[in-house]
C-alpha cells in the first residue's frame, strides 16, 4: 500500500462520516458511505494531474467517482479538469474528497480550495471569455476588450516567496489574486509582484479592475 493511500484512509476514517474505507489495488480505494452505497476513489501522488494521467486512471478504474490529487503541491491541468468534469467524476484534494463523502455528491465535487473563487469569476457579467489553464490559473477576457491572466493564490498570507514561486511555476501573470478571505498579502509580497510586473490583490481590487464597481 502506498504512503498516500495510508494517509488518505486514516484521514477519511477520522474526519468523514462513512461506514468503511479500504484499499482495493494500486491507487484506488473503495468507500462505503454512511447510506450504504459504495464509491471508488483514486488517491494519486502525482505532482501534476494531466489529461493523460486522468484518462489512464479512468481506463484502469472505469467506475471511479473521484480523482484525488493527494499532494498539497498537486497541480491540475485545465485539460484534466475538463476531462473529469465531462465524465462526471469529482476532483480535488483530500479535503474535497472528504466533503464529497459527507454530502454523497461526487458528480459536482470540485477542488475546494478554488471552487468558490472560480464560481465567483464565472458569475461576473463583465467577462466575455474564460479559459482555465490550471486549477489556479485562468485568463479572463473582459467585454471592454482587456484581458488578464490571473493566478489564484490560496495562501492565508501570500509571501514574497509564494508570489515568486507561483510566477516561476506558471509563467507571467497579470494579477495574483489572494483568494483566502481570512488573510492579506504581506508588503514584501506586494513589492515582489511589482518587481515582477503583476498586481497582488484581494477580491475588492480585482472587482475594480474588472470594472464592476
Amino acid at each position: 500500500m502506498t504512503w498516500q493511500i495510508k494517509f488518505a484512509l486514516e484521514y477519511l476514517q477520522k474526519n468523514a462520516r462513512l461506514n468503511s474505507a479500504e484499499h482495493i489495488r494500486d491507487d484506488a480505494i473503495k468507500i462505503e458511505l454512511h447510506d450504504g452505497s459504495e464509491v471508488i476513489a483514486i488517491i494519486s501522488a502525482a505532482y501534476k494531474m494531466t489529461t493523460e494521467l486522468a484518462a489512464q486512471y479512468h481506463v484502469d478504474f472505469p467506475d471511479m467517482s473521484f480523482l484525488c490529487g493527494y499532494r498539497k503541491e498537486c497541480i491540475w491541468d485545465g485539460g484534466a479538469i475538463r476531462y473529469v468534469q465531462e465524465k462526471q467524476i469529482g476532483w480535488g484534494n483530500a479535503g474535497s474528497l472528504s466533503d464529497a463523502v459527507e454530502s454523497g455528491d461526487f458528480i459536482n465535487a470540485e477542488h475546494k480550495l478554488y471552487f468558490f473563487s472560480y464560481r465567483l469569476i464565472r458569475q461576473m457579467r463583465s467577462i466575455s471569455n474564460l479559459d482555465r489553464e490550471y486549477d489556479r490559473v485562468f485568463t479572463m477576457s473582459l467585454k471592454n476588450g482587456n484581458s488578464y491572466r490571473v493566478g489564484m493564490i490560496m495562501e492565508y498570507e501570500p509571501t514574497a516567496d509564494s508570489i515568486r514561486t507561483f510566477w516561476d511555476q506558471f509563467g507571467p501573470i497579470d494579477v495574483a489574486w489572494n483568494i483566502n478571505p481570512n488573510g492579506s498579502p504581506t508588503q514584501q509580497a506586494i513589492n515582489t509582484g511589482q518587481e515582477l510586473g503583476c498586481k497582488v490583490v484581494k477580491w475588492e481590487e480585482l472587482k475594480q479592475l474588472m470594472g464592476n464597481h
Partner: protein
Amino acid sequence: MKAPEVAKYILTSCPTLSEFHAYMFGSSLVSTGSDFDILIVGPSGDTLSQLKLEIRAAGSMLPLDVLYMLPEEAEETNFVSRKKCISFENLCKLNNDITKKCSTGVA
C-alpha cells in the same frame, strides 16, 4: 507518522534547515489532518532554493504544506504567535519525552 516524528525526520534530512527557523502549526499538531502545515522563516536566494530541494526530497512520501516567510514577513504578520506555531526543536523534545516515557513504561 505524528507531528513530532515528522519534525525530527525533516530536521535530520534537511541540513540547510539549520539556517532557518522551522515550525509546525494547524490541525496536524492535535489530530490527523490531511497534511502537515509547516512554516519556515529565513533568508531568500540560493540557500532557500537549496532548502526547497531538500524539503521536496524529504517530503516525497509525506503530505507537507510548507509556507516560506522572510523574517520581516513573520514579524509583520505575527504568524508564529497568531497561529500558535510550535518550533521543530520543541516538537523534537516532545518526541524524545514520549519515546522516553514509552521505553520506561510511564504513561
